């Protein structure tokens, strides 16, 4: 830079009062931005407080562990869903893929005579392959993710029923590795008495949090959904990230299926009708994600899933029957999103 230019820059820097420096100091956090940012967490805290007042059973060790364990599958799936939503996609096929993963493990071991480890690897690979198809159709052929994954959920459901002929399969074997697998799914660790599954889930959550925060891959994944056009023009191959999001999502759904087998000791084709996709989407959205892409975070997605899970738990321990619980879920989701849009609308006025 020539000295003349430097002088010019300096003079422009001191040109207008209030804007003299590069950084004008911290922007203050107002109440509304606070609520906006911690929206999900606030709801969760309120729910926990209310629940502990309503029932002494709520904050017992057993119940807390129970809630944690019940959410493990949903959290694993939600990590994948978050990747999809970040890139501006959505995956409606996860319930079918969860079932696909679980029936593959039991079928391969019990009927095809595979060892448990190859069975798990094959199951995960085939689930990831489903994600490859989704990703290819969306990213490279430009088809709408909603429709592609909707169709895929039917397709995979069909395959699941063809393979199982509609039958449940038990995983029973005296083989040491199978026993280990089942113990992993059903037992607690000896020190803290927490289910092993919780540790695996926590590890996955930390892994994705790390990916999004500390790697170029995660950074570009989130950028892809924020503004695909600008990101493409900045020289980024957004197709790759869109594709990968679907692969990751299906892989994690398959993993959730495998964990389900470990937990239940069996698989059922009826899992295809599970609420996995809807809970994962709802939890991710509660955690700040947006169907438009580019928004959402790993920790808040976990919070969102817990909100969904706690609704059930709170009402169960207060003996509210199952059917009204769905209505309450609807109200909580709508209230949370309502809160966000009201504040957004007010801020932009």
């Amino acid at each position, binding site marked *: 830079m020539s000295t003349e230019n430097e002088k010019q820059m300096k003079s422009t820097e001191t*040109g207008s009062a209030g804007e003299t420096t590069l950084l004008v100091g911290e922007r203050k956090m107002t109440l509304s931005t606070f609520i906006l940012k911690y929206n999900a967490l606030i709801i969760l805290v309120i729910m926990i407080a209310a629940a502990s007042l309503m029932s002494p059973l709520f904050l017992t060790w057993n119940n807390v562990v129970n809630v944690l364990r019940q959410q493990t599958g949903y959290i694993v799936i939600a990590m994948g869903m978050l990747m999809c939503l970040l890139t501006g996609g959505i995956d409606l096929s996860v319930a079918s893929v969860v079932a696909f993963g679980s029936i593959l493990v039991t079928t391969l071991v019990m009927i095809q005579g595979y060892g448990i480890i190859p069975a798990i690897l094959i199951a995960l690979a085939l689930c990831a392959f489903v994600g490859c198809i989704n990703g290819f159709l969306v990213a490279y052929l430009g088809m709408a993710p909603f429709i592609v994954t909707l169709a895929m959920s039917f397709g995979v459901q069909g395959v699941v029923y063809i393979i199982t002929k509609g039958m449940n399969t038990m995983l029973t074997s005296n083989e040491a590795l199978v026993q280990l697998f089942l113990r992993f799914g059903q037992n607690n660790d000896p020190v803290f008495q927490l289910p092993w599954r919780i540790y695996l889930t926590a590890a996955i959550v930390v892994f994705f949090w790390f990916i999004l925060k500390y790697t170029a891959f995660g950074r570009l994944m989130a950028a892809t959904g924020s*503004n695909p056009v600008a990101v*493409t023009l900045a*020289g980024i191959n957004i197709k790759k990230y869109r594709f990968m999001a679907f692969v990751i999502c299906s892989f994690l759904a398959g993993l959730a299926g495998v964990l389900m087998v470990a937990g239940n000791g069996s698989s059922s084709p009826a899992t295809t009708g599970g609420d996995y996709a809807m809970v994962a989407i709802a939890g991710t959205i509660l955690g700040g994600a947006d169907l438009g892409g580019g928004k959402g975070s790993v920790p808040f997605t976990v919070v969102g899933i817990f909100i969904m899970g706690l609704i059930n738990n709170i009402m169960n321990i207060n003996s509210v029957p199952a059917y009204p619980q769905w209505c309450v879920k609807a109200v909580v989701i709508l209230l949370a999103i309502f809160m966000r849009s009201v504040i957004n609308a007010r801020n932009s006025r």
Partner: protein
Amino acid sequence: MSEYQIEMRNMYKSFGGVKAVQDVSMGVRPGEIHALVGENGAGKSTLIRLLSGALTPDSGEIYVKGAKAAINGPKDGISYGISVIYQEFALIPDISVAENIFIDEFRSKHAVINWSILRKRASAFLEDIGFGSISPSALVADLSTAYQQVIEICKALSRNAAILVLDEPTAVLTSKEVEQLFSLLNQLRDKGVSIIYISHRLEEIFRMSDRITVMKDGRVVGTVETAEIEEQRLVNMMIGRDLEDYFPQRAANIGRIVMRAEHLKAGRQVKDISFDVREGEVMGLSGLVGSGRTEAIRAMLGIDRLDGGRITLGNTEVKLKSPRQAFSMGIGMLPEDRKTEGVVLTLPIKYNITLSCIKSFCNAIGILKLKEEDRFTLDFARKVSLRGAASLMDPVNTLSGGNQQKVAIARLLASGCKIMILDEPTRGVDVGAKIEIFHLINEMVAQNYAVVIVSSEMAEVIGMCDRAVIIREGVSVGVLQKDELTEQNIIQYSMGVTADVH
């Protein structure tokens, strides 16, 4: 009766902690074109939103014909005869001209529409303002941008608008269309309509306006009679400091040709465009809006399909399939539309600056060296003299337009490319930021970058470029060297010699 058709007194409006409009008072006389000028972020847009009722002021009063007006929403603004024509038109593209003009009436007046009367009334309106050639039954989507603007004005007139606010009306028009607009505005002025005219283009302001109000940092610097002020003084008022030279000088040190595009052909708009650019040179691509400049660039870089032509880098012929590939070969591009293409508005400033070069901050297993990235981004933010950010983690949409553009340029500089293609680098940017961007371009050239500027502003091409290729209707029709770069020459080439005949 007040002297003013409309008057604002002591208007205030803040967003969070930001005082967008502070103690603003201004009045517009009947039959006056009143220019409202100021850098981007000076508060002009907020002010007109307050006037139209799109925003409600924190305090302050609005008087229409001397009587206090209660404007609490957009409908109130319309009922007081205030019509704002924003840069993005509020027309419905898939219905006819007549329906768009009388859209308000569909809600209230008649259950059954009498199409022939509607069309006749629309015709009458259009003829009245000298645009009888527009068919009232044409679809708005089929009209040119200029005609769409005419329809917007017609719509305002059908609401008996006495106060018309135009926000950068010529930004989207070709020079011929600008003339049509100006004669229309003069007509309206003669009919007693008060016009508030917002523009960055000084020549237009001096040509059209009766008085000028200058805003800066949310306040009114002053209101002056246009006839009594010189251009230089007006610019000084706008930026609040002296401005020696609009276009900074640079020492030309032009080297060998680094990129050559020959006979580019793409789609309907690019028929045969050739140009080249040398090291240390600013090369302009000039021509009317719609002549195919941007389209040629896009096809060349592999954003759109290239149907024919040769691109040579140094001595090797290349085919560019995507912007990514272009970047990897050292060709960086600043897209035309800042908000949708240039920056990612919702992402932090930092992420935007390193978007194109993020991979260079990864270690062997793909983990980012965040500290290094921080230092790097701060460095580049300083280099482009970015201002108005509380933190580099603020999303880009918290910045003013000029500063957003600086972020986009910082990203380009950070990418390490040596050939820079800048499509409308200063569009919608205020005077202060404009000059800073010109300085940045000079700096690129000083470091032996090759720079291509696509620009609709003739002054910019003349002031900044060492050479310019003129494009007319998809064909490069001529090359003008520095000493041949005059408005006269550019117009002649870009409109074609035949245009002078009729």
